[in-house]
């Protein structure tokens, strides 16, 4: 697949990354190369391989519904770049209202 088929600006926007025109050109080409490499898989005959959502074979790994220890509140809050009282403080959320 060539980089022409990748909307690099859209991908960057989804990832919240700002790219210069130069970078769009460069990363677009690199992503195209990556996809080209993965395309090798198309050449394999997978007719006999069942579809899967997971490559590991294990199933049903679950835990019993029991309460364990949480982190100490202060330990948690010390990791916060910004806090206010017992809350994490974050920049204003972009308006969804018109």
């Amino acid at each position, binding site marked *: 697949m060539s980089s022409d088929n990748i909307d690099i600006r859209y991908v960057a926007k*989804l990832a*919240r990354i700002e790219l210069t025109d130069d970078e769009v050109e460069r990363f677009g080409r690199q992503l195209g190369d990556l996809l080209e490499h993965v395309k090798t898989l198309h050449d394999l005959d997978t007719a006999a391989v069942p579809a899967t*959502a*997971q490559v*590991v074979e*294990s*199933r*049903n*790994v*679950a*835990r*019993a*519904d*029991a*309460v*364990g*220890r*949480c*982190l100490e*509140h202060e330990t*948690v*809050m010390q*990791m916060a770049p910004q806090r*206010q*009282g*017992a*809350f*994490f*403080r*974050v*920049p*204003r*959320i*972009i*308006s*969804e*209202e*018109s």
Partner: protein
Amino acid sequence: MTQYEAVIGIECHVELKTKSKMFCACPNRFGGEPNAHVCPVCLALPGALPVANEEAILQVIRAGLAFGAEIPAFSKFDRKNYFYPDMPKDYQISQYDMPLAQGGVVRYWLDDGTTKECRLTRIHLEEDTGKSTHAGSGDGRIAHSSYSLVDFNRAGVPLMECVSEPDIRSAEEAVGFLDALKRTFVQLGVSDVKMEEGSLRCDANVSIRPVGSKDLGTKAEIKNMNSFRSVSRAIESEIARQIAVVAAGGRVVQETRGWDELAGTTHSMRSKEEAHDYRYFPDPDLVPIEVDRTVVERLRSLMADLPIARFERYRGSYGLGVAQATQLVDTPQLAEYFDSCVGAGGGGQQAANFVLGDLSRLANETQTPVWESSVAPQDLAELIGLVQSKTINSKIAKDLLLRMWNGGGSPKALVEHEGLAQTSDPGSVERFVDEVLAAHPKVVADYKAGKTNVMGFLVGQVMKQSRGKANPALAGELLAQKLG
């Protein structure tokens, strides 16, 4: 003029009532100090790995079975990617194309007793987000805030999403549908389903089309409804708005609209951003779920009488009114109490009257639920039997019930010990009648002068004289004979 009908689908999120969160062992508890129930997994600290809560998976399967949904043999968790500060991983673990439950039908009823059906598309399991408070604006609105405060206690709480097909046609039906979900989930014990506490949240997809048309109109998604009443008002307001738009020659646009409780209208929440692109993909941190058929069959066999089945039984077999049947079904313990009483021989309608009348009043007064009181359902059935056999009249029954409530025990024993049995012996009732007539010459004269409505007073006096034991019907007959 064109007549329109509404086409409504509901999506609701229900917080499951597990002890711990969905993918970590933090407690699943409402309220509490902010950021006190958090750990590396639900804070998404690097390297932390989620492990699914088995109980939450079983609860969703039971919810699906309650509505006759198919439980596929294979299910998995996917990542739903989007950015929001109350979601620490920047993705939500959810289920995309292989939910735990598919299809099914919710049967519900309206206030007039009509039963309706709404198909379910799916029920899937995901994790809740944290909670943010928009601050620095003075009015709490996102648009005017300068920063937000985040509490992650709710992040990672198991959340069940139920999506309906667009089978609902009115605000009343939407509320009936939600009531049915609520009753069923409460009875299954999978959730508290309290809208005011946020354990039930719902959105409605509303569109209109000319009556008779089979096409679907353009829908608006209504959000921010925080009570059943606001769901009803919001849907009604939105239907009216869409009809007005179309009647004025306009077109309904596909958008998200927020319900404004104070204004009583919906308003556009269209964002400048493009349509969401969640880039779902299977979560590599979680292995797939293979649902064992024997587990499904065991859960199915343990399924108790569901609210709709109960409602129909109460209406059909006992002829209860919609209000009484609904009241019983809405409190599963009360319904079980009622069922035990009827099972012990207490006729349906009489049992309902006692349970919802005298017993519920006593329960209110003493703050003791009926099912925890000292009146066993078998004792109530015995009391009803005594009334039906005319051993006691309804006045004595009420007195006895109060004594039973206060720990009096078996009504039969009370009646025997205290000689409360109703007197249907004409001889002894006649003695009371004669005493009453002798004591009230003026009333007797009034009666003879044509004021026959004093009869009630005279019967009352006979009952009083006999300390409630006289058979009132017999007393009436004897009085009429003597006065006639």
